[in-house]
């Protein structure tokens, strides 16, 4: 409909992206102790790659030379950092030396990521609320 609705579309794309970030952090936390996955190796930490994405007429006003307003999930990549090793000979997945390979997930880091994503989600919700209020104020001109 116009620039304001494109701005809502941009915020909406950000909401989806932040939701995926939260899901990735939740998945990492849930699998912090998973010593085996479908391929037999321990779970690898997932990371979300975000990419700027043009959204309608909003770009022509905001983007300038580099049209970019919305955001989209370019992909979910696996963290190639080495696995943690814990000495636990009784574990069925322990190697010959008695060490178990654990996922390369740092729980504190995941908590921080999750909080950041949740705050970003809230910020985008606020932006949408603001745009809606602006439109409704404009509509009140007709009353």
């Amino acid at each position, binding site marked *: *409909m116009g620039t304001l*609705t494109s701005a*809502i579309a941009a915020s*909406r794309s950000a*909401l*989806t992206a932040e*939701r995926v970030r939260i899901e990735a952090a939740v998945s990492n936390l849930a699998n912090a102790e998973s010593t085996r996955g479908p391929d037999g190796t321990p779970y690898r930490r997932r990371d979300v790659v975000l990419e700027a994405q043009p959204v309608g007429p909003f770009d022509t006003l905001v983007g300038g030379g580099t049209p970019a307003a919305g955001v989209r999930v370019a992909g979910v990549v696996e963290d190639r950092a080495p696995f943690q090793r814990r000495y636990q000979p009784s574990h069925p997945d322990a190697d010959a030396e008695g060490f178990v390979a654990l996922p390369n997930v740092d729980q504190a880091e995941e908590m921080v990521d999750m909080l950041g994503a949740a705050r970003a989600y809230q910020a985008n*919700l606020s932006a*949408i609320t603001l745009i*809606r209020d602006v*439109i*409704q104020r404009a*509509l009140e001109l*007709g*009353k």
Partner: protein
Amino acid sequence: MAVDAISAAVAPPGATGITGTLRPPAASGAGSPAQAPGFVDSLGRLVLAADDAGRVANETVGAMLGGTGDVHEAMIALQQADIALQLTVQVRNKLVQAYQEIMRMPI
């Protein structure tokens, strides 16, 4: 001459003047600006847009309930449908207001 012009605009209903622009361009008289889209056409397009937004909102809410959509997508679609409807209602109010204003005009 001025009186003639006014009576000509008022007397034949649906032919010229205000009534002419209130009709679709195809049905309007020769004297009216048929090329410019009238107020009612805009209202018609707005109604269609509001209907479209309502349909999209309905689909998005259905997708959310079906487990394939997001809550925020559904809420945003509902808000956009609400805004489109409010805009349509405001335009319609102005149209009715203008009509009543003209009907109150002493001739």
